[in-house]
């Protein structure tokens, strides 16, 4: 029993066989549904965005309603560089998106993370709205309300041309970036740093009392998360060839929150499961009730909040525990 406990902790970060499944499925989708790759690309970007949110919301317990601020910052960074500076190289574009979004995360996190709960929620929302308004008013740079349509980007690594018709290149590009982003987040959450973030989420008072520099840890996590959300936003602009103010919208910020709650927050794979569940649900509901599909999303959320606080993955875990208990 005692050896079990140490081993359980020592093995937690080990890769398990089923962790290959999302990537196998991602590649399978490329071959099985070649006409759905534009949709698939958006799905992958949503997963990356949700993954960045999971780091702060799921692990560190920072409740934010304005994470699209960083998605938007990344999206506009790539757009403005391409439109005004002729900087069309995709990979360095993503790096710039990460840098700008990360800096905004650092600055806003430094100020906002003194607060908690509802205050923090409103302030994150304000940050996003401020950026949205800046995008609206700086029309000379951002294209204002209409945004910047018709952006084009160079070949990836000078080899792979963006595929306007079928999104083949975009899909694989997004899959590769998601994979790298995932590796970073996975590494972080299983590190001592990640463990201390979980500690902050579980008990702030105790975390102070064990002598942890709580605020510095939170600001750091927030910055990394913002940079990752910026990469997701940059990908969005590059793969679609346009950017407009919708990237900053409350709809996107709330959408990614719903994805995470649906899938299960603080669970690494909740972003994957949630994004797929959300988009499939949206697709099916829109087909069945074209005018009232959002009602279905709302009803689902209520059910999840009442009966499955840890989302779909949480349901799976509970089921597994019950099966184990039965045998």
């Amino acid at each position, binding site marked *: 029993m005692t050896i079990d*406990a140490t081993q359980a902790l*020592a093995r937690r*970060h080990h890769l398990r066989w089923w962790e290959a499944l999302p990537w196998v499925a991602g590649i399978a989708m490329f071959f099985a549904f070649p006409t759905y790759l534009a949709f698939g690309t958006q799905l992958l970007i949503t997963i990356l965005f949700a993954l960045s949110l999971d780091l702060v919301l799921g692990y560190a317990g920072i409740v934010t309603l304005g994470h699209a601020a960083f998605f938007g910052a990344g999206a506009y960074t790539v757009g403005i560089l391409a439109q005004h500076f002729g900087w069309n190289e995709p990979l360095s574009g993503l790096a710039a998106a990460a840098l700008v979004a990360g800096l905004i995360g650092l600055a806003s996190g430094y100020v906002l993370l003194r607060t908690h709960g509802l205050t923090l929620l409103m302030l994150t929302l304000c940050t996003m709205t401020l950026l949205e308004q800046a995008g609206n008013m700086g029309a000379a740079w951002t294209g204002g309300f209409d945004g910047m349509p018709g952006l084009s980007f160079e070949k990836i690594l000078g080899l792979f041309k963006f595929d306007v018709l079928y999104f083949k290149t975009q899909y694989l590009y997004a899959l590769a970036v998601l994979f790298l982003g995932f590796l970073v987040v996975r590494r972080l959450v299983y590190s001592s740093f990640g463990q*201390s973030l979980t*500690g902050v989420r579980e008990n702030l008072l105790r975390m*102070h*009392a064990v002598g942890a520099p709580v605020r510095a*840890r939170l600001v750091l996590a927030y910055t990394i998360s913002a940079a990752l959300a910026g990469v997701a936003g940059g990908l969005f602009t590059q793969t679609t060839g346009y950017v407009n103010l919708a990237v900053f919208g409350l709809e996107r910020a709330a959408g990614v929150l719903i994805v995470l709650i649906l899938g299960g927050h603080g669970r690494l794979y909740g972003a994957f499961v949630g994004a797929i569940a959300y988009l499939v649900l949206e697709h099916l509901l829109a087909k069945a009730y074209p005018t009232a599909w959002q009602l279905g999303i709302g009803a689902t959320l209520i059910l999840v909040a009442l009966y499955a606080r840890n989302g779909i993955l949480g349901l799976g875990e509970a089921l597994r525990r019950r099966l184990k208990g039965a045998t």
Partner: protein
Amino acid sequence: MSGAAALETRGLCKNFGALEVARDVNFRLERGARHALIGPNGAGKTTFVNLLTGLLAPSRGSVMLEGEDVTSLAQARRVKRGIARTFQINQLFRGLTVLENVSIAVSERLGVGGHMWRAAGRRSDVLDEAMRLVHTLRLAADANRRIVELPYGRQRLVEIAIALGLGPRVLLLDEPAAGVPSAESHIILDAIAGLPKDIAVLIIEHDMDLVFRFASRITVLVSGAVFAEGTPAEIAANQDVRAVYLGSALDA
């Protein structure tokens, strides 16, 4: 060996507006001491602990740790200097396992809590140390269980294990047996009796059995001020203390 106490306060005052919760408290906790702080409800005992740990800043006066003034240091810095505490009401990482709870504390002490790349599970130094503490407090059978699954008495032991994980020179125990059914309180007693001798321990407790068995020195706090101090025999014989506190507590 210098004559500096493990922990000392000089003229410590704290008021919330007009309410004085600590009044000119001069207090010495000797090195390796077993010292109890008692007093009626609302005497300011927990406030005093909060002043010692830096959770609260005093209005006046100073806190000295082994002769060094730490009054201006924030809580986290004082922890690094060797002041650890437990809470009157459990403050644990409830969704995590016992071993994780302790290893978070050990990680911070070893200064690896912010390391971002190496997996926490590969820190065998942290895990071994945490497991050793888990054994010491006889929590080994529960090491892999989450806090929420444990009975309250066992949770109290995790509080102590976390504090010990910080490698303290001074340990402040705020009512360690509070909320523990009397059938289980001997487990807490044993744990406290088994604490390393070189750690100075200050215990706040209402359970007089525990206080008189554990402490070699007792301070009585009333209305935020030191009312009496002495050996257990002196305190037990002190008529004033009996009048304000012990009498009512012993009747209860």
